[in-house]
């Protein structure tokens, strides 16, 4: 601060002994028309804002406005994200689904309303500030102890130094004094610089240590803060257990039992393969498959005697008819869907298709779902474009229902199997829906039932007739114009 401002007067204060004298003085000051006033007390005093004539705060409005902003941001953000920018089906809920948006909107409302209340309070109070000229008065320290102070600011339009001092004295104020600009030295004392410097230096140590640790290797074992979280006592898959004689931590089913819901009696239904036909064509392969599916130890098959003893040793290691990659698939797939077709089955298939398949294959099955679009946008190198379901090689003639079912169950190329997510019945329903989807994209008029076909033909005829009439009208009008022009 320059010297010219060193003696600038900020205001006048007076000291009071009790709440009652202070309140009385406040009321008199208010009634005398002063507005730039403040009172300082060691504890909150009821009614002091009224006594000083302080207007009700605007803070609730700030808080309300911030809260409304919060709820608006929450709702708009989620509607835009889930409903417009990145449509993604979550648990089969609609894209814009209000109940799901509530928690985030609620939290944002609370967050912004409290920010509004907190920062608004600071702003309205002119905080934070480093100093107040009143602090230069040693007596004022007792404002946090046992004295009450009343202060009239020089900015008040009615302020006049001697008049105010006299007024405050008349009100019973003691030690009435002017508050002038604090003339203490403005330079920061050296010890503080030293402390700040040391603190800054110390603060650099942890990041430096971390940075060094990032780029060096250490021979000492890692320090585990939560040992049993890093090393769960529960056994993972394929781990050795000391609890059981055979050392396996994954326990096999008790012999002769099937876990609840795991009984796959109809093997055709669960594999999509016509096993009778397979056994006729290639009995060893059928046996091997059944063993694998039934989770039986892959030893010398018991049925080998009845079937073909000479082939038995070969079964374990190599298929009896080795199929080279790229050759024609000779598996006898089930040609049709074992589920009785109904609109319920198709709807079920559609629901599951749109949850599990559409993300890659697209809702229309053309292979351009959200994941594919995203993969192409980021140029994912390992990405294999999902097949379009609308190609001849995937139609029922070349790709039987059973094979499609098997693909859904076990996966193909980069596509994972959906055995774990979808029950066999749902997978068959998806097969049925895929067939319907294929039909829908390549349908002709002849595919419609007779009555619908006639309806459509009738509509077509009506439209054609209307078009013809319009053309006729146009022609006549053109003739009429040309006739008038000719005249």
């Amino acid at each position, binding site marked *: 601060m320059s010297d010219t401002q060193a003696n600038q007067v900020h205001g006048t204060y007076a000291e009071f002994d009790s709440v009652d004298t202070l309140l009385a003085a406040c009321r008199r000051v208010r009634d005398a028309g002063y507005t730039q006033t403040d009172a300082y007390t060691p504890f909150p005093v009821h009614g002091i804002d009224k006594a000083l004539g302080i207007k009700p705060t605007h803070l609730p409005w700030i808080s309300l406005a911030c809260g409304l902003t919060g709820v608006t941001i929450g709702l708009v953000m989620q509607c835009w994200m889930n409903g417009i920018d990145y449509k993604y089906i979550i648990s089969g*809920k609609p894209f814009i689904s209000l109940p799901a948006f509530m928690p985030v909107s609620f939290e944002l409302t609370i967050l912004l309303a409290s920010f509004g209340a907190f920062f608004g309070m600071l702003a309205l109070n002119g905080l934070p500030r480093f100093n107040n000229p009143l602090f230069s008065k040693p007596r004022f320290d007792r404002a946090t102890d046992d004295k009450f102070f009343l202060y009239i600011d020089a900015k008040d339009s009615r302020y006049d130094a001697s008049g105010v001092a006299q007024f405050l004295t008349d009100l019973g104020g003691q030690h009435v004094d002017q508050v002038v600009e604090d003339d203490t030295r403005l330079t920061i004392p050296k010890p503080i610089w030293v402390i700040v410097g040391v603190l800054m230096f110390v603060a650099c140590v942890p990041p430096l240590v971390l940075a060094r640790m990032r780029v060096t290797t250490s021979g000492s074992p890692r320090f585990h803060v939560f040992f049993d979280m890093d090393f769960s006592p529960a056994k993972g898959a394929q781990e050795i257990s000391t609890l059981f004689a055979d050392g396996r931590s994954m326990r096999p089913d008790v012999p002769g039992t099937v876990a609840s819901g795991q009984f796959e009696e109809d093997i055709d239904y669960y594999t999509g393969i016509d096993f009778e036909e397979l056994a006729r064509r290639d009995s060893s392969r059928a046996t091997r498959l059944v063993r694998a599916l039934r989770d039986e130890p892959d030893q010398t098959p018991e049925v080998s005697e009845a079937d073909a003893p000479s082939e038995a040793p070969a079964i374990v290691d190599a298929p009896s008819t080795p199929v080279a990659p790229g050759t024609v698939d000779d598996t006898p797939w089930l040609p049709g869907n074992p589920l009785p077709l109904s609109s319920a089955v198709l709807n079920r298939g559609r629901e599951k298709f749109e949850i599990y398949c559409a993300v890659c294959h697209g809702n229309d099955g053309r292979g351009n779902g959200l994941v594919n679009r995203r993969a192409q946008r980021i140029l994912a190198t390992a990405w294999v474009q999902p097949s379009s379901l609308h190609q001849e090689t995937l139609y029922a003639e070349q790709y039987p229902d059973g094979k499609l079912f098997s693909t859904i169950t076990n996966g193909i190329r980069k596509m994972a199997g959906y055995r774990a997510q979808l029950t066999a019945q749902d997978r068959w329903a998806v097969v049925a829906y895929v067939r319907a989807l294929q039909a829908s994209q390549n349908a002709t008029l002849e595919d419609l039932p007779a009555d619908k076909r006639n309806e459509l033909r009738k509509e077509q005829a009506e439209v054609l007739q209307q078009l013809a009439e319009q053309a006729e009208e146009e022609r006549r009008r053109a003739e009429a114009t040309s006739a008038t022009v000719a005249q």
Partner: protein
Amino acid sequence: MAAHAAHPKPADDPTFQLPASISGLASPLGLSGLMLLVVGVLIGLFAGAGGRFTMSAYLTAFTYVLSISLGSLFFVLIQHLCRAGWSVVVRRVAEMMMIAIPALAILFLPILLTVWMGGGTLFAWGDPNFAADHGVPLVTWAEKTRYLNGTWFTVRSIIYLIAWSAIAIFYFSLSRRQDETGEVTLTERMQARSGPAVIAFSLITTFAAFDWLMSLAPMWFSTMFGVYIFAGSVLAAHCAIAAFVFWLQSRGAIREEVTIEHYHDLGKLMFGFVFFWTYISFSQYMLIWYANIPEETEWFYTRQRGPWATVSIMLVFFHWMLPFLGLMSRHVRRRPALVCFWAVYILVMHFIDIYWIVMPEAGSGLGSLVGIITSVLMTVGMVSLYLGGVLWFASANQVRVLAVRDPRLPESLAFENL
């Protein structure tokens, strides 16, 4: 400023007594209420509303008045637990409503009777064919009925009613004894017991909500249900206290003792509990809606079909949004008449909430004309009987409407919001 006149009037001041114009209403209200209740039950049973519907309507009305008493009991407990000073001038009103619990135990008898008559008239789990009719596996049903059966239900209900009554009587009698003696030790005793009492209260209320309301849909469960009922009850109790005090003041009692400041605080609590109720009920809904597990969605599925869908949406707008916005302003909460208006309004909405909890389990729709008449008669009768009973008990025992010698009374009289 009340701060300067914090000295209570002498304990025998006439404005501390129930005004004659109010106590005179005790018998007319009580008797006509009882009559309406009986007529309602008879009409329901014999004019074709159906046993399930009639008893459900009775349960609705009973739960409604009980929830007000339970909320009041909680109010009294929590004031002692917090050693609250502000609330002393309105606490006696809460105590007058809470002491109705032992009497309400008698009104629970028809429900017990219905359970004992068997056949699942009110609670579907009493129906021996329930499992077969609803495709519930017999193993599951055997486990369910180990808890949900007539005998065990009766035992539990009696335990709940006795425990609530014991707590209510303890706090009521000590508070009244203090009216005469002014012993500070009584307050200390009440405070010391309030911790365990609150724990007992919340456990009992949760289980009562499970048994009496949630088990109406035997296969449905929500661990949040107890809190949901609690939230509604405490909200209703604050409203009832505010409305009751306003009524007393309008007839000349405790005019100088209860000030705008107390209404302001009751208004704040009403505002807060409106939102608490919303928070809990929405959380219960959203978790079930999001997980979408059939055994859980059943309850809400019933309530978002047909006419109940309208009621559900109504609750969102009129049980939450309207009172929430209405009570938001400090200026509203500092006008006793407006606080009283919102209190009565929320009490009506609280009834619709209870109705919405109970009645969808009684049948598919809102009920026939006879059913609605039955329901209205029983509700009006029950509320009137309840009010009459509260007033009769207070006037017969010369209960003052203010805890006149509470050691914190001066603090409450001088109470001011910052």
